[in-house]
């Protein structure tokens, strides 16, 4: 493949970032917006070209005997620390990175377009577009990384752009603290990632993905059977690397930053905190999947964490008022779904279908969750509030938003023929194949998903009209915002029919998707029950919800407060860590380290005053010093030596 396109895919967004970041202040809003959108549009076209070439050209570099190959477009030495420790930077193209290129650029382009309408009146419009470009660059660099170190670097860059965008409204204290929270929590998780990378590369002498995954059993043998606390070092490395993924993908107990991240502008939530960045953890596991297969302990860990998170987030989502928070918890739940699907995938179970299903769901979820977030943005734009209590009955006022949002809800609930149905069906089938327990558990979560999504849908678009509408009539958003909604809704309608297994599988061999009737019917029935329950409770104004809330106040309150995770964190950090550990360290710092430095300063100052006479300005004295210096030097050496 020609090297130009891949380089341009990375170069255009970073150039846009530099142009908008440095020159943005002097640009008009229109100029900045057009530049950003054009840049992203071009990147999208290029990414499509690359993905299309990869999937359809039939070049033997890409597909050999029907098996899709990993292909490094380039892989240049970047930092050569020692002979072994070499960090490369390159561009890897394989089924999942090609798919991610399409997903990222599509959603990013939609968000660029949407933001033009949504952010129109916000100060710092140019800065916003600069950050969006930076994020797109980082995310693209992450998915095409040829080695785990490059991925780590872009991983952190993604974290930084996320931090910048969450804190975009930096005058709001809540936005600032949310951005800090997101950064610190993910950074903390990345510590695990980094240690994992170091352990892995220490034993394997390579960062390169191809080298690591092409022959995983050889990698295992390089560890020489070393163990640590009862588990092999490879398991440790993989679990630690997964901890990094847990942070970015908001798995329990590191999920606490994602709901708060909703303080950022809504399009940002759609791009970063729903469609692209938060699936980085899933992508990471998928990228190293052959290694995980060798160490099934790590996969079981992933499955368990995913299953618990999925259920927890779904329950919490049932009791939130803020529509963006509901979507945030829904995102956590859906990502956990993907994680479970990856965790249960085995080559001998439906040819590793779980992997394919997970990636399929990543793809469809990106589309419909971005759609839902952008729809939520349109609602917030119209009503100027995040809470559904301020909404209700909006279907008459905002038909475009209503219909697209409904499509999004149907897709996430898993109703045929919308895209979510297909991917969810594959995932559930894979889970049932592994163990019926996983299947049943996750089917229940799918039912909860349908329930809370339609609870929100009915509360927003049905229920009772808010009396404020008379003073301030809500209306559909301008075309820049409606167009992405329509496009994404259309994609969500048809994406399920993509023969995804032909493109993305764990080992590159095509897999023919077929609907598992049993699973499909079960999940459809469960989803329909969830929707029906939601309709019964929330379609018309009534006091059933209030009665339910009053019937179990403790549970409702706990779910509403997210089962007190934030309070637990506060207790651990503020009460325990800050008081006990930090205070003693601070004492040490002040009385030992600072004191040492101060003594240097004092001694230097005093000596400096004491010896200033040496520099008298008299040439005679200079020469004396000179001569006696040489003589004394000789004398001392003489005495010491003889």
């Amino acid at each position: 493949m020609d090297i130009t396109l891949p380089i341009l895919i990375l170069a255009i967004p970073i150039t846009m970032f530099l142009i908008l970041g440095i020159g943005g202040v002097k640009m008009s809003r229109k100029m900045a917006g057009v530049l950003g959108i054009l840049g992203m549009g071009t990147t999208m076209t290029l990414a499509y070209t690359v993905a299309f070439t990869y999937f359809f050209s039939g070049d033997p570099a890409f597909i050999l005997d029907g098996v899709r190959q990993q292909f490094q477009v380039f892989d240049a030495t970047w930092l050569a620390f020692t002979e072994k420790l070499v960090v490369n930077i390159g561009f890897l193209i394989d089924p999942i990175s090609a798919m991610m290129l399409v997903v990222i650029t599509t959603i990013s382009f939609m968000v660029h377009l949407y933001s033009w309408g949504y952010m129109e009146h916000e100060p710092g419009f140019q800065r916003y577009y600069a950050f969006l470009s930076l994020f797109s660059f980082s995310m693209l660099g992450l998915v095409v990384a040829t080695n785990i170190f490059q991925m780590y670097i872009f991983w952190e860059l993604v974290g930084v752009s996320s931090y910048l965008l969450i804190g975009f409204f930096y005058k709001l204290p809540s936005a600032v603290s949310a951005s800090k929270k997101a950064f610190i929590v993910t950074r903390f998780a990345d510590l695990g990632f980094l240690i994992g990378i170091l352990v892995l590369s220490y034993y394997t002498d390579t960062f390169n993905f191809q080298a690591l995954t092409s022959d995983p059993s050889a990698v295992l043998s390089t560890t020489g059977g070393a163990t640590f606390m009862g588990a092999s070092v490879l398991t440790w490395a993989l679990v630690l690397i997964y901890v990094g993924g847990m942070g970015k993908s908001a798995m329990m107990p590191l999920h606490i930053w994602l709901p708060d991240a909703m303080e950022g502008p809504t399009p940002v939530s759609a791009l970063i905190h729903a469609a692209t960045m938060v699936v980085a953890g899933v992508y990471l596991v998928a990228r190293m999947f052959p290694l995980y297969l060798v160490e099934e302990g790590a996969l079981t860990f992933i499955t368990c964490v995913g299953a618990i998170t999925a259920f927890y987030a779904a329950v919490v989502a049932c009791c939130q008022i803020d529509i963006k928070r509901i979507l945030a918890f829904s995102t956590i739940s859906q990502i956990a779904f993907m994680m479970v699907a990856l965790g249960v995938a085995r080559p001998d179970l439906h040819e590793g279908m779980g992997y394919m299903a997970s990636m399929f769901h990543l793809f469809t979820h990106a589309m419909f969750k971005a759609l839902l977030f952008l729809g939520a943005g349109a609602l917030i734009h119209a009503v100027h509030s995040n809470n559904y209590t301020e909404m209700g009955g909006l279907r008459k006022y905002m038909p475009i938003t209503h219909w697209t949002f409904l499509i999004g809800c149907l897709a996430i609930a898993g109703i045929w023929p919308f895209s979510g149905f297909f991917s969810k069906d594959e995932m559930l089938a894979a889970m049932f194949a592994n163990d019926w327990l996983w299947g049943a558990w996750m089917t229940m979560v799918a039912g909860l998903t349908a329930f809370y999504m339609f609870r929100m849908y009915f509360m927003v678009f049905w229920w009772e009209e808010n009396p404020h509408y008379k003073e301030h009539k809500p209306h559909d958003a301008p075309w820049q915002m409606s167009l992405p909604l329509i496009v994404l809704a259309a994609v969500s309608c048809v994406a399920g029919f993509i023969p995804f297994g032909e493109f993305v599988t764990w080992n590159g061999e095509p897999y023919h998707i077929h609907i598992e009737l049993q699973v499909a019917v079960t999940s459809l029935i469960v989803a329909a029950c969830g929707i029906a329950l939601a309709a019964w409770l929330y379609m018309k104004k009534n006091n059933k919800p209030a009665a339910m809330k009053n019937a179990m106040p403790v549970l409702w309150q706990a779910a509403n407060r997210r089962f007190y995770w934030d309070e637990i964190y506060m207790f651990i950090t503020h009460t325990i860590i800050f008081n006990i550990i930090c205070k003693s360290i601070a004492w040490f710092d002040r009385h030992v380290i600072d004191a040492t430095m101060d003594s240097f300063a004092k001694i230097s100052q005093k000596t400096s005053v004491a010896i200033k006479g040496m520099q008298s300005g008299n040439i005679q004295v200079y020469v004396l010093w000179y001569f006696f210096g040489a003589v004394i030097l000789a004398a001392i050496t003489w005495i010491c030596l003889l």
Partner: protein
Amino acid sequence: MDYSQFSAMIPELIVLGIFILVFLFDTFAGETARKADGMLTTVLFGLGTVAIFFTGCMPKECFGGMYVNNHIELVLKCILNLGVFIVLVQSLKWTDTPDMKLRRGEFYELLLATLFGMYLMISARHFLLFVIGLETASLPLAALVAFNKKHNESAEAAAKYIMTAVFSSAVLMMGLSFVYGLSGGSLYYGDVANAVAEGPMSGMLIVALAFVLGGIGFKLSLVPFHLWTADVYQGAPTAVTSYLSVISKGSAAFAFFIIFVQAFGAVYPDAWEWMLYAIIILTITVGNLFAIRQRNMKRFMAFSSVSQAGYIMLGVIAANAIGMTSMLFYILVYIFSNLGAFGVISAIENQTGRLSMDDYRGLHKSNPWLSFAMTLAMFSLAGIPPFAGFFSKILIFTSVTASNSMALYMLVLIALINTIISLYYYLLVVKAMWISPEEPVVSSFRSSGSERFGMWICVAGIIFIGLVSPIYGLISKLVTEDAPQLLAWLG
């Protein structure tokens, strides 16, 4: 006589050629044409440097081995040439002043003459040639220091310089006469090394070592041979000061390395490691302690350069190939950092005549770019990452720790503590420029094109030299080629 051996001396011949061209031009050109002296020298010198870089690549020696021009010598000459080029560019504005009208040519001629001497110092493998080089470098420098002869300070500085230089030469000669006696009548480094290796450790050898150290220590301003530095740096024209602080030091440091490793290598570490050990600690510490108190920028830079010379000497005490490499690298980085600082100092001096650190207060408001360049230079001198100075310091420390001796670890520790102290006074300048709340003393002005060009070279060097690893790698490769021959005498 075999004249073809002169072809080994291409660098010297090129400098000499430029010298003659400039001299002839300055003598015979008309009044107006002579204004082009500076530009002519600079351009010729730039071309000459490129020529040296590309023509002198073959290791050569001549005059029966008195003169050697190997890879490392060539690399150092190119590094020094780069520094001289920057000095030339930076001084263009100063030599353009009406005051300099009649003396402009002399400045360039003297400068090239000293450089010629330094080349000989670097390439010498015979003490006679070394002394000739040293004197050829010293005497024109005295004239240069006295260049503002109408200013008392300049005259005083020159007097102090020439007297100390004469005295140091006397000490050096005394030492060399002992060396002559020791070696049984030869002044070749190789012969001296043989005699030193075979003979017993004698008092004469120690005295000879101490005196030779003193003689070269003068050029490097090692403590206690440094006392002239502050007065001379302050009194000399700023262009000359910057020349003294980097070029003169760089060449002397290299000659020092060669002499101690080649001629006295056999008595390392017994005799001179401890001598050098004491000198380095004294130099770094005393330089720092005096630098803390200075308010005049040129005096401040003088003591800073004393302290920096101590760091350069760390490469000598390491006495290995890494030490040589990191010393050359340190000199290169030091050239960029120090000349960057001097570029700002002279730009401000040329514009306003102000030289006190207090005059730099609030400079960022009136001259942000100058403040930026100065800040980078200070950061680099202090060794703050990611600027070049950080890398050069870390490399030179690494070279010292390579020999795994406890005493040398202690030395590095002391050097590190001194780095902290030096951070204080370098940051004083930065603080004055950026943090002091006062209104700027120096009003906003635009530096001349040449000044800006010189500063941009330095800024680029400070930012990129450290980050671009091939440069260190290249020096390292060349040094490794010469190392077996170079370090053969080490005990």
